[in-house]
C-alpha cells in the first residue's frame, strides 16, 4: 500500500481541494496503482545524472530579457473583468482579518 485514505485527505488539504468521501476512496485506489507503477524508476541508477528541469538551448545569458521599455498595461478595469467579485479596483474575497 503506497497511500492510505488518511494520506489522501492530507494531500487534498495541501492542494486546497475539497473531496467527497467517495472521491477519497476512489483516489486512494487510483493513486496507489499509479504510484506503484512509478516505482519502476527506482530500477535506474541516476546517481551521476544531472536533473533536466527544462529543454535548454544555447543562447546568451541575458538574451531572454527584453528591452526595458514601458508598454501599456491591461488597465485595472480590464484586468478585473473576469473577477467573480470586485470592487473599488480590487478583487474582493471573504474577510481574512477581523478588526
Amino acid at each position, binding site marked *: 500500500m503506497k*497511500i492510505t485514505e488518511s494520506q*489522501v485527505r492530507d*494531500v*487534498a488539504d*495541501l*492542494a*486546497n*481541494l*475539497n*473531496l*467527497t468521501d467517495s*472521491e477519497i476512496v476512489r*483516489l486512494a485506489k*487510483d*493513486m496507489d*496503482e*499509479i*504510484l506503484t*507503477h*512509478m*516505482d*519502476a*524508476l*527506482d*530500477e*535506474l541508477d*541516476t546517481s551521476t*545524472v*544531472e*536533473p*533536466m*528541469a*527544462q*529543454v535548454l*538551448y544555447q*543562447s546568451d545569458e541575458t*538574451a*531572454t530579457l*527584453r528591452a526595458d521599455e514601458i508598454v501599456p498595461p*491591461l488597465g485595472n478595469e*480590464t*484586468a478585473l*473583468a*473576469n*473577477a*467573480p*467579485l470586485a470592487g473599488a479596483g480590487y*478583487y474582493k*474575497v*471573504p474577510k*481574512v482579518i477581523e478588526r
Partner: protein
Amino acid sequence: MITESLTIDQVQAGLATRKFSAVELAQSALSFAQAENPKTNAYLHFCPERALAAAERVDKKLAAGENAGPLAGVPLAVKDVIVTKGVRTTCGSRLLERYVPPYDATAVVRLEQAGAVILGKTNCDEFAMGSSNENSAFGPVRNPVAPDRVPGGSSGGSAAAVAQGTAVAALGSDTGGSVRQPASFCGVVGVTPTYGRVSRYGLVAFASSLDHIGPFGKTVRDAALLLETMAGRDECDSTSAFAPVPSYTAQLDGKVAGLKIGLPREYFEGLASESGDRIHQAIALLKKLGCEAREISLPATKYAVPCYYIIATAEASSNLARYDGVRYTTRANEDTLSGMYRATRGEGFGAECKRRIMLGTYVLSHGYYDAYYLKAQKVRALIAEDFRKAFTKVDAIVAPVSPFPAFKIGEKVDDPLQMYLSDIYTITGDLAGIPCMSVPCGKTSEGLPVGMQILAKHFDETTMFRLADAFEKAGGFAGSN
C-alpha cells in the same frame, strides 16, 4: 459552396481566381461547421463576428491589390485552451465556463495577421488533461470517422474538425501527445514542434516545461505553413527560441533518397497487430523512396510513462493553483477565504484534473520530492540523451503514434493507469523537447485511421516535414481519408 475538402492552396487559388471572396468562404464554412457540429461536438462555441471581420480585412486587401497573407481567408479552428481576446476560452472546464480573455495568444495574433479566419473554439479534455476527450466538462467529442469512438485527446475537437472538414486547419496543444494522438485517431496531420519553437504566450498552462502549441492540417504542406507562420521568438514567452524560422514549405521537394531513418525497437513491442502492419507498410514505402532504415534502441523508453506522469502532474498541480475563486469567474460561496478556495476547486474541477492535482501535490510534498520529482527529472535527462545519441546515427526516427487505433467511447474511462500507458509512444518526444508529428498511413480493416510518427532533432522540423511530405506524395496517405 463546398468547403469541407478545401486545403490552404485551394483557398488561395479560389480567392485569386475570384471563385469566392473571403467573406463568402467564411459564411459557407461557418454555416457548414454549425450544421455538422451536433454529429461530433468538436466545437464548443463559434465566433462569427470575429470570423467575418477577419474575412472582410482579407477581401479589402485583395480588392486593393495588396498581399493578404499566406493564410488569407483560411477557416481555422482553435483549441479552447488557447486564449482569444473577447471570445470565451473555457479549457473544457466548468471553472472557466464564462471566462473571456482580455488578450490574444501570440500564435493567434500571428495567424490572423497572415489572414487566417478563426471560426470558433474546439472541445478538449479539461485543461488538456486526457487522451480521449472524454474529460471535457461539455461532453465528449465523437470521432468523425467512427462516431461511437473517441477522436483521441486532448486536442480531440481540433483533430475532429479538420477530419470532418469543418475547418481547413486547426491549432491544438501537445504536452504528452495531445496533438499527434488525436491526429492519428482521426486520420489528419498533426505536428508538435520543437519546445520553444512556438510561443506559449496565451496557451493556458498545464505543464510548462512540456507544453507546445501545434498545428493540424489535411496535408503536410498545410501544417508546415501554419507552423512557419506562427513560429519564432516572442518577447512575451521567455522560453520561446531565438533560432531563425526557415520556410519549411519551400523545402518540400519530395526527395528523401539517402535519408537515414531509425526504427526504435522499443516502440514496436506490444503494438496492436493491424496498427503495426500499417506502420511496417509505411516503412517499406519510405525504403522504396530511397530511405535507409535501420533498427535503433532508445533504452529509457520503458521509464517514460512514470517519468512523464510525475513531471506533468507536478507542474499541473502548481499551474492549476491559480483557479482559486479569486480571479477567474467561478467562485463557491463560503464564509472563509480558505473554505472558498477549497469549495471552488472541489466543485469546479473534474475527476481527471483532481487526480492530477493530487498526484502532483503528492510527488512535490515534503519527503517525497527527491524520490519522485527529482528522480523523474534525472530520468528525463536519460530519455533526452537516448535521442541525442540516436540522432548522431540517423536523420529521423519513424515509429507508431499509438499502440492501437481509436477506441470506443467509455472503454477506458474507468482505468486511469491504462489510459496513461496508452501515451507511451508520444510522451518521449515531449520529454526530450524534439519536433515530432503524426501522418496518416492507412486504415485498419474496421476503417480506423492509423498514424505514423516522425521525430527529428531539435529545430530540424525541415527534415521531419520533408520526409512526411515525400511519404504523402508517394501515396502513403492513401486510404486514410
